């Protein structure tokens, strides 16, 4: 059976690694990006089933990634955004651009897994 692909765009390497281990344990294939530019490249190349993206990232922000996916690539893949405290306006912008869900940092990795499963099943 083909594993479902998830693109994870997160510039915190430790958090990325933690989520990679956790989601791989759940049977997903993780494609890691450290910034928005890499995320867009991975999305275009692999056509993932889900995108997890931080809002604040170097070069290209999470908002630009969502905008690219929804407007340029025109694909309906579910997107979950991570936001830090004080980024409420950004979250609203992310929803307006087409994000499906958000998680405020700090968050529980277990809760993220539940949300991922809900969106993928």
């Amino acid at each position, binding site marked *: 059976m083909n594993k479902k692909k998830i693109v994870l765009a997160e510039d915190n390497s*430790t958090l990325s690694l933690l989520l990679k281990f956790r989601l791989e344990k759940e049977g997903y294939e993780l494609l890691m990006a450290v910034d928005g530019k890499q995320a867009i490249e991975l999305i275009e190349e692999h056509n993932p089933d889900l995108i997890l993206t931080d809002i604040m990232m170097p070069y290209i922000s999470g908002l630009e990634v969502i905008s690219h996916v929804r407007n340029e690539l025109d694909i309906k893949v579910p997107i979950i955004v991570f936001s830090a405290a004080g980024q409420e306006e950004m979250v609203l912008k992310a929803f307006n651009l087409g994000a499906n869900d958000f998680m405020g940092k*700090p968050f529980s990795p277990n809760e993220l897994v539940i949300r991922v499963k809900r969106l993928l099943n």
Partner: protein
Amino acid sequence: MNKFQYFLEYYNGEPLIIQLVWMVSCLLFLAVIILIIYLKFLRVHLRENEKITEKYTKDYELLLITYLYAETDENGVSLERQSVINELEKGIKNTFKRKIIVATFLKLGNEITGEMAESIHDLYSQTKLKKYALSKLKNRNWYIIARGIRELTLFHVKDAHDQVVKHVNHSRREVRKEVQLYLVNLFHFDGLKFLDDLQTPLSEWDQIQLLEELQKLEDQQIPDISLWLRSANKYVVIFALKLAKIYNQFGMKDVLIELISQKDEKVRLELIPVLSHLHVIEAKEVFKNNFNESSKDEQIAFFKLLENLIEPSDEPFIIEHIYHENFEVKYSALKLLKVLNAAKFENLELTPPESDFVKIVEFIKNN
């Protein structure tokens, strides 16, 4: 050789000023060369350092994740977790590596909650990192003490309470702030007990930070604040007044009335809006009796309180002050008169027509 000799002859034959210019030029040239070499060396050194840091960070990230996903043992630390702890212990002995380990823990600890965040705190306490942080509290430099306390706060080390609380009256504000944040973050409202012993100032910024932390707490049960309202430290009293207002401490009415006779004007000025907020009507008579002895700011603040707690019985007092020399008191008194007795307000004698008093009355009539 001939060229060099020719240059020497040329140099010796020139006037002193030209020789000087040559000398300065040579020195500057030499300085530029030395600086270029130094910068090159510095860049190489920094890049190497960066590479080493990156390598160790990756190693410690992997160890941390291994620890977090390792099997747990009900009877103690599992073998897998113990081997991670042993590996980390080796690195902790080295200051450079220790900094990377702490940074790695924090990098993840600040982004997650739940069981995993607690496991990071446990790992911090199980390794010698806690011991190093505690040793910082004994350092002679205030900034190292502050850094140590901050680390203990971030890793939720509750059992360092007694060592941390010793610095509650430290001469540096930065250390005191860290102590206060440690206590409030880890012990919530119970942590405010440090106010019992605080002899040093508590700045406005420190108070805001403490209130912000307190408002994040789920349990908003505030302890008895009467002791702090009676504190000999005026900063503690001012902070307690803020607590009384935010947490609607209606039960503190008698203690608040006692505070009207406080010697410090700043405390009295902070007190008036709290009395107004908590509707302590009994305070009005005390203020009225002391009105003429009060400062201008207090008089203005008292009229602001009256705007909130006005009663018909206040009319004689208000009429007494509609010609007050202070603009704000006069304006407030006239506004209150309009509310209490509109007929009397309408029939006020408006002479001479160009006076400030008449202008204020006209403004209030029209608004």
